[in-house]
């Protein structure tokens, strides 16, 4: 937040804090009066390097931003059996093991998923984290220093809609295949973090922890692993939902072309965007969404002023589970300028990782195109229903808990 010259606070441009909470605060005025008030923001705390390390601070910050009761690093120690006599913690001893983390999260009714970027250097750490943080799943990012691993909680991101790279990379190379698309993570230039060695609300450039060298040759100051805190029912990985959305949507669009049927203008642009001399990428934004929040987004108008009818809303929501992966498929200018999308692709989120790649054809729930909704069926063919939305439609937004200032 910064103070505008008219003494009015407005948020920083294109700063999106996704992991926030409202905290009940009290001040004893000293006159036998307790003043109560609320602060909406993100919790920050530091390690003391004696009985707590960065992992305690990061975990506390994360849990206090999603929970109701405030916990301290010492609460975590008690939970995992650290008594500072027989079992000690601190920089000379150990960090928090996976077993410790699991125990603490279980007590909070939370689950997690994680990946190691040293063992899997082909995974772009920012894309991995972004798909979860965009759906308000907190992330703990661990990176290497010269001698240690440091962990910071990721609370949100900034956006730069003028970034040249995503479109230039597509136009100036010839790598076009079905999975050649750009995640909206490509326009995220910083993660917003708390670093307990520095303070709250720092903007960490994505590129600060990226290297073109392999980890075994260049180990210092790069992303090491990420732990994502998830609802217990979230089991399907984000990459699977996103890749399925691109493959299956493109398959259906190609089928329409093959049979010579009419496509709406915007879906046609998706098909045509890549088959030209200087192609432009399709853009995909994938995030985990709950059904109630999705329903709240059905009251907008599309670019032509059309709205969803009550019958449309019923069709769209009757088969939806309480939690699902939503992939919004769009084009670069629609994303950066209009902040709108063409296609909504819905995918199950409670399935275990794939044992068979073609299971992606069973796991999609429905696809909303302009003019039509395709509903998948486990037993027969999908069905197609008419929709009143005929053009591009505003991107999904969570209910605002704090003001944002969008370009």
């Amino acid at each position, binding site marked *: 937040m910064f103070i505008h010259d008219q003494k009015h606070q407005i948020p920083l441009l294109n700063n999106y804090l996704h992991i926030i909470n409202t905290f009940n605060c009290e001040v004893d005025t000293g006159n036998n009066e307790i003043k109560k008030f609320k602060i909406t923001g993100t919790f920050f705390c530091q390690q003391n390097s004696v009985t707590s390390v960065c992992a305690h601070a990061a975990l506390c910050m994360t849990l206090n931003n999603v929970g109701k009761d405030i916990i301290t690093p010492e609460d975590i120690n008690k939970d995992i059996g650290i008594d500072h006599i027989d079992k000690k913690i601190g920089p000379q001893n150990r960090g928090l093991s*996976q077993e410790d983390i699991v125990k603490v999260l279980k007590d909070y009714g939370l689950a997690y998923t994680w990946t190691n970027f040293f063992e899997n250097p082909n995974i772009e750490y920012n894309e991995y984290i972004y798909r979860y943080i965009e759906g308000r799943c907190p992330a703990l990012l661990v990176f290497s220093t010269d001698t*240690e*691993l*440091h962990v910071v909680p990721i609370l949100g991101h900034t956006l730069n809609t003028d970034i040249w790279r995503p479109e230039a990379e597509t136009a100036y190379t010839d790598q076009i*295949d079905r*999975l050649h698309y750009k995640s909206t993570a490509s326009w995220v230039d910083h993660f917003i973090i708390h670093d307990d060695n520095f303070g709250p609300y720092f903007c960490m450039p994505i590129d600060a922890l990226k290297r073109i060298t392999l980890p075994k040759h260049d180990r210092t100051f790069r992303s090491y692993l990420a732990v994502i805190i998830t609802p217990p029912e979230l089991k399907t990985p984000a990459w699977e939902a996103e890749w399925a959305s691109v493959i*299956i949507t493109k398959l259906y669009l190609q089928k329409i072309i093959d049979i010579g049927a009419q496509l709406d203008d915007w879906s046609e642009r998706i098909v045509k965007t890549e088959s030209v001399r200087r192609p432009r990428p399709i853009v995909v934004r994938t995030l985990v969404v709950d059904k109630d929040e999705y329903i709240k987004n059905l009251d907008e108008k599309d670019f032509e002023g059309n709205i969803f009818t009550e019958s449309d809303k019923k069709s769209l929501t009757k088969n939806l589970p309480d939690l699902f992966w939503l992939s919004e498929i769009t084009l670069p200018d629609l994303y950066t300028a209009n902040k709108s999308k063409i296609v909504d692709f819905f995918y199950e989120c409670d399935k275990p990782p794939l044992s068979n790649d073609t299971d992606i054809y069973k796991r999609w729930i429905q696809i909303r195109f302009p003019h039509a909704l395709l509903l998948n069926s486990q037993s027969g063919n999908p069905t197609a229903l008419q929709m009143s939305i005929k053009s591009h439609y505003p991107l999904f937004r969570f209910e605002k808990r704090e003001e944002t200032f969008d370009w």
Partner: protein
Amino acid sequence: MARIASEKGKKKSNNILDGWQKVTKLKLDGGLKQNEKAKFEKARFAEKQNKRSTFVLGGKINFCD
């Protein structure tokens, strides 16, 4: 004019829906392309590795070559 435009629009909508209804009756090509299979395989391998290994948050680096 508005009525003609509205009828044209309705006809377009109906044509588009017809197309989707025809396509949903076709069998969706179940195969992934070779490069897609490779990408899926890499991603699934990464997940299996996670299940076999463990992590520690914070502390000294312990790189195993």
